[in-house]
């Protein structure tokens, strides 16, 4: 499994981006959010019980991620058509503000090493990826454990927060360099 410090693998996946007729699908690639952080989270299967709760919660908190220059991407190994059907079927998923990616060839989940060995579906993995495409945080749980979006926001804050003001200058240190 890839971990902190590794480059997040390149991807080019079909995704559901909305329910509007003829605008339901588009390709989402690893290159399209330059300068942004990415929060990529996986769930095992569409139409299961724990999933919509946490996916909907990521949706409700999307503004908090946008405020932190972070793009949320949800992924499972279901096809884009199953994603669409689920979104049409489940009221909490109708207005989801981030793309639901279809890793139907399991290339991304294999590259990351987050496939369940027996079930062949993605584990509940969450990756925070910085603008240089480096993985800065990984969290994986067994199939039926839900996760806390609060915790993901807290970690993102901690990763992004540095005392960058020259006021933090201490005697003997060189002048702070702009990143």
């Amino acid at each position, binding site marked *: 499994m890839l971990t902190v410090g590794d480059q997040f693998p390149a991807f080019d996946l079909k995704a559901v981006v909305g329910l509007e007729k003829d605008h339901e699908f588009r390709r989402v690639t690893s290159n399209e959010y330059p300068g942004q952080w990415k929060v990529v989270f996986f769930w095992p299967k569409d139409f299961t019980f724990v999933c919509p709760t946490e996916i909907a919660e990521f949706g409700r908190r999307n503004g908090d991620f946008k405020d932190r220059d972070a793009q949320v991407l949800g992924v499972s190994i279901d096809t884009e058509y199953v994603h669409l059907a689920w979104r049409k079927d489940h009221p909490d998923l109708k207005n989801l503000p981030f793309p639901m990616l279809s890793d139907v060839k399991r290339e991304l989940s294999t590259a990351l090493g987050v496939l369940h060995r027996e079930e062949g579906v993605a584990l509940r993995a969450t990756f925070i990826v910085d603008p240089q495409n480096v993985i800065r945080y990984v969290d994986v749980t067994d199939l039926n454990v839900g996760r806390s979006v609060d915790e993901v926001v807290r970690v993102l804050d901690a990763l992004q927060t540095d005392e960058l003001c020259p*006021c933090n200058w201490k005697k003997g240190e060189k002048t702070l360099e702009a990143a």
Partner: protein
Amino acid sequence: MTLEEVRGLIPEPARDIKLNLQAVLAESSLSQAQRWGVAVASAIASRNPTLRRAIVASARREVEAVVIDDAVAAAALMGMNNVYYRFRHLVGKAAYSERPARLRMNRMVKPAGTQVDFELYSLAVSAINGCGTCLEAHERVVTAGGLTEDQVHDAVRIAATVHAAAVALDLAEDERTAA
């Protein structure tokens, strides 16, 4: 209200301030952007709404929007950092300076305009808010960044005068309310 009209509200006993305000905003060692950026940041830090609105309106006519954005960011961030770092240096206990601040200040190193101008606005606000370590630190950064002592001095003259104008206008507004 135009800045000229606002100057007219400054009461007679504070006429020196009225004249200084005109003088410091006219030609100086500072570029047009530096002068108005410092004036806007200082006006925000000085908290008189009439003066703030008039200076922001004048600045909009004189400089690009990014200068005003940076001045707003500097005034807001230093509103936090001046209090926080002043606490650290006045109390002077390692227990506090060794703790991470856990405060976001990312805009400090991502100004819309130039870094050195942003630091100059921060310096002006620090002079108004009265943080010694912040003043030392920002003075060091702007002079290391190529600004001259004349320029630093002119920026602080603007900060001092804008602050005094805000004090005088508060007084004038009180008198009008009482009358």
